[in-house]
């Protein structure tokens, strides 16, 4: 029995693939191709510009012997975990509150979002003032009479990374809020009603019924936030410059500095690869479980 498909039919079936083709091509070349390129570079002795002379694992050795890299990596863990967790919780909470038919929602929403709009090249200065013990918060509170008040994270080696968390949360949580809000706006009212009938308090209704439905939005948020966490470059640059010392350095800054300012492109490439594999180890299981989960919807 010959299946005589009309041309329009088979074209129609191919459409999704056709639509995805340009993206796929760009991805293969500009993401994976370049990752391979970087991988190759990390095995060369490149200094100022790429040079293709094989150098084995030299660059990795240098990388792992560099105390600054250790600091950067452990900072990334601290920063990543705190930043993602706090942004998610705060963003979700604000979205839920905003979803309660709030008067002036538009204005409040814009206020939460605006930090995204302002480049850190300059907000960094404002934040530096606010967090600076001699100028900002500490001074303000002390001037109000609480002369023992201390808030000097910005200038303390062990605490500086937390100021980066604060500024990053300030900048990103509004966007997370917007993502959750968009998700919430898509949920059918009748489910919430059903949950109320089932005796769920508003909190429980959100926790058990609505959040699971928001799971895809949650997924988007986690990906975006990890992306921001890994690439937080100008934030560090503007706020602490990696200091005091290099105690608040992050891998992105390390990599940029080594690849472009220190003529150690090989080390920079090696650090990029290590970072990618770190992401791979954490993110891939998550991606896998999410995508499998959504398959069975």
């Amino acid at each position, binding site marked *: 029995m010959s299946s005589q498909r009309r041309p329009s039919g088979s074209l129609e079936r191919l459409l999704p693939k056709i639509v995805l083709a340009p993206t796929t091509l760009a991805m293969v070349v500009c993401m994976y191709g370049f990752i391979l390129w970087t991988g190759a570079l990390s095995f060369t002795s490149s200094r100022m510009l790429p040079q293709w002379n094989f150098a084995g694992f030299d660059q990795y050795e240098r990388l792992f012997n560099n105390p600054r890299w250790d600091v950067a990596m452990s900072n990334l863990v601290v920063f990543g975990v705190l930043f993602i967790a706090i942004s998610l919780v705060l963003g979700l909470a604000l979205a839920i509150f905003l979803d309660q038919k709030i008067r002036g929602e*538009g204005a409040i929403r814009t206020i939460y979002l605006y930090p995204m709009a302002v480049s850190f090249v300059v907000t960094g200065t404002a934040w530096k003032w606010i967090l600076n013990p001699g100028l900002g918060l500490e001074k303000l509170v002390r001037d109000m009479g609480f002369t023992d008040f201390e808030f000097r994270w910005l200038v303390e080696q062990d605490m500086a990374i937390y100021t980066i968390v604060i500024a990053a949360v300030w900048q990103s949580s509004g966007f997370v809020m917007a993502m959750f809000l968009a998700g919430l706006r898509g949920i059918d009212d009748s489910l919430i009603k059903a949950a109320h009938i089932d005796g769920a308090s508003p909190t429980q209704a959100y926790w058990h019924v609505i959040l699971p439905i928001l799971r895809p939005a949650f997924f988007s948020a986690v990906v975006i936030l990890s992306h921001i966490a890994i*690439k937080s470059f100008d934030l560090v640059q503007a706020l602490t410059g990696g200091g005091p010392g290099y105690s608040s350095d992050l891998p992105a800054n390390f990599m940029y500095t080594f690849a472009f300012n220190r003529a150690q492109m090989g080390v920079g490439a090696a650090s990029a690869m290590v970072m990618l594999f770190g992401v791979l180890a954490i993110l891939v299981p998550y991606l896998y479980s999410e995508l499998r989960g959504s398959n069975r919807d």
Partner: protein
Amino acid sequence: MSWQRGLIYAILLVFAAIYLVPLYVMLTTSLKDIEEIRQGNLLALPDSPTLYAWSKAWSSACTGSECQGLAPFFWNSVRIVVPAVIISTVVGALNGYALAKWRFRGSEMLFGALLFGCFIPFQVILLPMARLLATLGLANTVTGLVLVHVIYGVAFTTLFFRNFYVSVPSELVKAAQLDGAGFFAIFRHIFLPISLPIFTVTLIWQFTQIWNDFLFGVVYSGPGTQPITVALNNLVNTSMGGKEYNVDMAAAIIAALPTLVIYVLAGKYFVRGLTAGAVKG
């Protein structure tokens, strides 16, 4: 109003206030003169507000050998951002739609690969991408810059749309198929109308990312096509001292204004209950 609602309003307003502090600092600083800033009370309102810093930032601050303020760069940014945002959003929406509702063998893999790909640090792609652009004859052109932004933005726009569309009931697609709608017609008539919130989010994200982008903008632009962030960076960075904080702050706010305007305009498309009443079950 019950006490719970009161509490909600209180929380929302407190956070709004906290979020506003840096803006407040920036605004008041931009209205002070440099002497007053030196005296150093950050949170004080300006004694005698002046728009000097604003007009300087806009039209006469130096950003290199030229001292024309941010104005000329503003339009460069617009020429880059508008096409890049539109293209990446549209492509992302179509991709997301295809990945969510027209699955085929390997489509989930493709999506996963796309997501993972966007964790590549942008710093490492600078050089190979420069080569590629040169090969394509797009080095230091607006088109090249748009292309770069689209390529590295599409992963995120796809993510947003795909994850929004997975929760749209598949029955709607089925019904539309029977009504004779094809791939694009279903997208246009069924998915677009319910996508307003996610379009808003994506627009906000893309617009912000591209408008505020510095790295690509500085590396792939040519003289005369530099975006506003490069100008802003030039304006606020000085190794010689004599920092004019008021001008810096005014410049930052000016540079952020278009994004803010977009937020305000797009914000109203967050509407309630878009899929209600569609299907039962």
